[in-house]
């Protein structure tokens, strides 16, 4: 049996997905990327094999994507995360759509047509506003665990507006709000709203919308806020954080190139 592996070495986390020839997902894993992308990729691959209950001695075709794609020494080929996300998204939603991927370090808006071809993409500017790094920074400042953001935002009773788009300015703006006695739940909902606004600045977001990425995976309430703002249903794949890795595995299966033992 041939297996196809997609490894997405992102700025925050490294994801690995194993599929077979029938494109069935057997195993996957998510590990921290840390400061050693090569080691992170190896660990993610190992854990995904364990989750798939597949031995290292099987035949694997590996395609690496993400910021650290060139550090994956055991990959047979590489492709950008933009192509891989489009591929992974179309796998779940095989119709024309616009994908919003909110990752650790960047946000992407990718457009695919009815046949799954990518027809355009945009990435956020160098600024990290509206990305996972932005949420991490703010959570840290508010002394809230990153995993608690979603539940806290959900419980907010009113909306507050954050005007700045620079992460540093936002933190300063939050100080003003804290001084005014605004509850942390509302501050966090305001921060989520800021993430929504950053995406709306990138593209008109017409048609069907799919959302993916780690931020979406851990903060489903953010998707709800997008739905309210855009006044339509937003599609989210079952494993939103793994979309790029799934796309990479699908590309690996198409290439059927060299295999690593």
């Amino acid at each position: 049996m041939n297996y196809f592996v997609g490894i997405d070495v992102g700025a925050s986390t490294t994801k690995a997905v194993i599929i077979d020839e029938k494109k069935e997902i057997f195993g996957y894993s998510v590990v921290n990327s840390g400061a050693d992308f090569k080691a992170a990729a190896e660990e993610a691959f190992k854990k995904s094999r364990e989750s798939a209950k597949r031995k290292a001695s099987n035949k694997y075709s590996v395609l690496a994507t993400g910021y650290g794609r060139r550090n994956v020494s055991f990959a047979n080929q590489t492709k950008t995360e933009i192509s891989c996300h489009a591929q992974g998204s179309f796998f779940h939603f095989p119709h024309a759509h616009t994908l919003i991927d909110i990752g650790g370090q960047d946000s992407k808006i990718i457009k695919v047509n009815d046949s799954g071809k990518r027809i355009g993409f945009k990435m956020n500017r160098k600024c990290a506003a509206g990305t996972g790094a932005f949420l991490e920074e703010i959570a840290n400042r508010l002394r809230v665990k990153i995993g608690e953001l979603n539940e806290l935002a959900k419980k907010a009773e009113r909306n507050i507006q954050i005007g700045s788009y620079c992460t540093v300015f936002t933190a300063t703006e939050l100080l003003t709000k804290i001084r005014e006695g605004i509850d942390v739940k509302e501050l966090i909902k305001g921060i989520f709203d800021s993430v929504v606004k950053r995406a709306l600045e990138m593209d008109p977001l017409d048609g069907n919308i799919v959302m993916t990425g780690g931020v979406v995976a851990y903060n489903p309430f953010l998707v709800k806020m997008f739905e309210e703002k855009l006044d339509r249903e937003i599609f989210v794949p079952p494993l939103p954080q793994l979309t790029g890795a799934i796309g990479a595995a699908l590309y690996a299966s198409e290439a059927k190139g060299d295999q690593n033992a």
Partner: protein
Amino acid sequence: MSEEKKVAIKKIQATGLMRKLMADYFYELDKASKEGSPKVAWCTSVGPAELLLSLGFLVYYPENHGAMLGATRAANNYIPVANAIGYSPDICSYLTSDVGAFIKKETPLSLAYKGIEGVPKPDVLVYNTNQCRDVQEWFSWYSKELKVPAMGISTYRNIGKIENYHLESIVSQMKDMIPALEEISGQKFDIDKLRHFLSLSYECTQLWKKILETNTAAPAPMSFFDATIHMGPAVVLRGNPQAVGYYKVLLKELEDRVANKEGAVEGERFRLYWEGMPIWGKLRALAEFFISLKTAVIASTYCNSWVFESFDPEDPFMSMARAYTEIFIVRDENFKEKYIEKVVNKYKLDGILFHDAKTCPNNSNNRYGMPERLEKKLNIPALTINGDLNDMRCYSEEQAKTNIEAFIEQLEAR
């Protein structure tokens, strides 16, 4: 597969000759600066250089020095120095790096040319705001610092159709400068000398245009990254017979490449337009990256900006005014779009790269919806890269490369 492939940029044989020309040019300026004769005029890149040459000045171009600071990756040593005296990091990074280097008494000229200790001392500073207002501020700083007169031409901007009143204004501003320039140079204005330099500039421009047009061939013989280096003589030596001689040699080499189907990029798969300023500190890295992607960046607004087709020795002032006005940067969005459309069709391009240079708004044409409009109109994709001409703090290499690679993957899948 996972390692970035190492590639080699094909050498243009004429490069040695160009280096010699440039060295001669800077040594001549250095000598004049040290001896006080002939007089030295600093001029903006599309300023009235021909007029200055006709009055006996040697002409030095600070923008070229700015580009050298960028290309040698020294700019970021100097930009903060200018920032610290109140020149914002958001304004032209040619200005800030050049002024910063001057304050620190350093120049890449000393590293490149033994015996040159500094930039040539100006006797006059002459600008044309057709590029931007920053050039005026730039010269104004030097004027105060060195107590040297600054004068120049203020032009209309965002022009669609060029009207006579646009040109008449420039003609009268040029003529108004003559008495002061005569006094500084000690030479009387002679219209026949002006005609002579205009003829040489015109010849240089025509050759440079032909050189750029060799890239209509597939594969294209010269990359945009090569062209930004080889345009040096067209920028600093226009009006000089050596520039004409050099471009005849370069043209022949490129025509030979075309005849032999020898491209700048081995296995050329895609052909792209570069709109905006070069990212000087990353020229080589980008050139190699595009070679590894088998993609040729072969047409640009930037390199075409030194083609002055209107120069006419029969009508010197009016034709100079027209030449300085009809360049891309002075024109409105509608003109710019049609211009790019023509080039895309002529060079059979597959996509357009827009460089959004943080400190150069006038050369960042992605900011008013142009990429989106051109994508629709021309049915080819466009990509915007965030960066800067000189300030590498504004450039994320990883992000730029990922964007470019993804863009090429998109072209592959078309």
